[in-house]
């Protein structure tokens, strides 16, 4: 492993330099939440390198809310900077779905290959953050091109992929002072956050226990927790792993891929009227089964990365971790 030590000022100059070739997106503080925005030379100083998980999941860059999947597009080279590991982990499942099997999703593939991802170390956690419950860490080690840690005015950049190394070489980042390991203070900060997350989520069942609990026949539990669900679909739309979409037809046989969600009524309804997910509590349960049973079996990846967005966003105040804890009892 090589770690490049870059002073803040130099790092900002480097970012400014990339703008001639790339559209660069980074997290910014907007009110009391974090959200990705496109950077310009003036905005570099405002990037929020700390802070919470951005509201919009990373998937939106590769699987946009709406995308014309038939029309020819101008390729756009992009950098996404400061991605938390819960969003990076979701790429394992998304890649297996969109790029695996008999048909490779050409749009997703193009969006992925045009993008360089720089992951970040999380330095604070929300009350809903629980990546460590599913054996994930709040810092990036894979599914990105470069991993970035920040400590007292210094950025530590670690190339993860070959593409990341080539990129760092090209922008002469690799001419900075380099080390074989991250400095102790960064490693210590990482360990402290892991400990805090573990403590915060000591009662959250892991993926194996969760699956067992969810698979139990327990209609009363699902009815109870579904009672406040308003079928808004926000939990699915905001989820970094939810991949469902609906194709909408346009003229010239063009098609627009739109985010869709199993929690919305009618998602599974057929033309003659039958609907396997007609009942609200069946839809709610289906979402949990999909994440902890079906996706691991079908695509060899858990469909929850513990980002906590579904908990933060739920209008009915349904807390996924409380539902699963109860299911496991």
């Amino acid at each position, binding site marked *: 492993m090589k770690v490049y030590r870059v002073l803040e000022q130099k790092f900002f100059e480097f970012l400014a330099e990339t703008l001639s070739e790339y559209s660069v997106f980074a997290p910014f503080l907007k009110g009391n939440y974090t959200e990705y925005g496109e950077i310009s030379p003036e905005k570099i100083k405002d990037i929020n390198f700390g802070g919470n998980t951005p509201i919009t999941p990373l998937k939106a860059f590769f699987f946009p809310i709406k995308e014309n*999947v*038939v029309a020819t597009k101008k390729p756009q080279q992009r950098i996404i900077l400061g991605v938390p590991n819960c969003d990076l982990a979701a790429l394992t499942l998304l890649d297996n*779905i*969109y790029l695996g*099997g*008999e*048909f*490779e*999703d*050409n*749009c997703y593939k193009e969006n992925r290959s045009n993008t360089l991802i720089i992951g970040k170390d999380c330095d604070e956690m929300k009350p809903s953050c629980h990546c460590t419950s599913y054996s994930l860490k709040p810092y990036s080690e894979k599914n990105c091109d470069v991993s970035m840690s920040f400590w007292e005015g210094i950025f530590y950049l670690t190339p993860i992929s070959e593409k990341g190394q080539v990129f760092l070489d090209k922008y002469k980042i690799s001419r900075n002072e380099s080390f074989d390991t991250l400095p102790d203070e960064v490693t210590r900060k990482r360990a402290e956050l892991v400990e805090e997350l573990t403590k915060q989520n000591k009662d959250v069942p892991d993926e194996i226990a969760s699956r067992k609990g969810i698979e139990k026949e327990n209609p009363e539990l699902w009815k109870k927790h579904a009672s406040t669900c308003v079928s808004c679909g926000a939990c699915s739309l905001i989820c970094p792993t939810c*991949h*469902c*979409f*609906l*194709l*909408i*037809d*346009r*003229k*010239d*046989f063009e*098609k627009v*891929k739109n985010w*869709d969600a*199993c929690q919305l009524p009618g*998602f*599974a*309804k*057929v*033309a*003659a009227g*039958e*609907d*396997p*997910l007609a009942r609200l509590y*069946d839809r709610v349960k289906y979402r949990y089964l*999909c994440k902890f*049973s*079906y996706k691991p*079996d*079908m695509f060899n990846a858990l469909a929850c990365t513990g980002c906590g967005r579904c908990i933060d966003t739920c209008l009915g105040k349904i807390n996924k971790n409380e539902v699963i804890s109860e299911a496991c009892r």
Partner: protein
Amino acid sequence: MHDKNIYKPIRSKIINIIEESPTIKTFVLVPEEEFSFKTGQFIEVTVENVGEAPFTPSSSPLETKQLEVTIMRAGYVTDQMHKMEPGQYMGIRGPYGRGYPVEEYYDKEVLILGGGCGFAPIRSLLYSLKAISDKLRKVTLCYGSKTQEECIYKPYIKELRETPKFEVFRSVDKADESWEEKVGVVTVLLDDIKVDIPNSVAVVCGPPIMMKFGTKKLLEMGYPEDKIYLSMEKNMSCGLGKCGHCAMGNYFVCKDGPVFTYNEIKDTPHIWM
């Protein structure tokens, strides 16, 4: 791996439309690019600017210049399809999924249970079976529809009845005096037929309620669970195993089906919806 855009349909000209019943039409399509399918596989059919829906072609897979799609008017997209005329264009994508494994039917009797518009995939299967009839013992078709008017493929039924090794039984839920065949739901036909069950496979395709009771009856008759082939229907969008709409437990019907044996899906929730 396919390099082309997986979402882009092939423009296909409607050269003929056959009215099969008051609610069912068969569209004869000529694709502008080479296109072939295996029997039981499905295609996505697009009406430009309107929508797209999955259908299993009802024509023979051996016919490669044109294909036929039999469509029941049941919703928004199929309503628009029924308003189309010869000379207009539909779009097609595919073929998708796992069709009927006809080579597993060699040296066997094939019992086919069909209902309503479920005859469409079955007709394609029957064409395929006819082409290999020297390798089969017998093919028995039991077909049910709600009324006499809704019995589709009338000329084809006549042709099939004159085909050696093929036999046809039909029922309608309600009939007038002119109906000379059975009255009742399609499963009543199974009481009259002779099948050598240990040397037989069964194929079921129709509306969910018919599939449910058809399968139940076949199991009671002694068909093993892995010898009952079901063509499953689910809401679909992409057809490619990406969009999630056709999820059925651990399967996506579009890529793992649409044809399943009963033992593959019997423990899956909501199979009959």
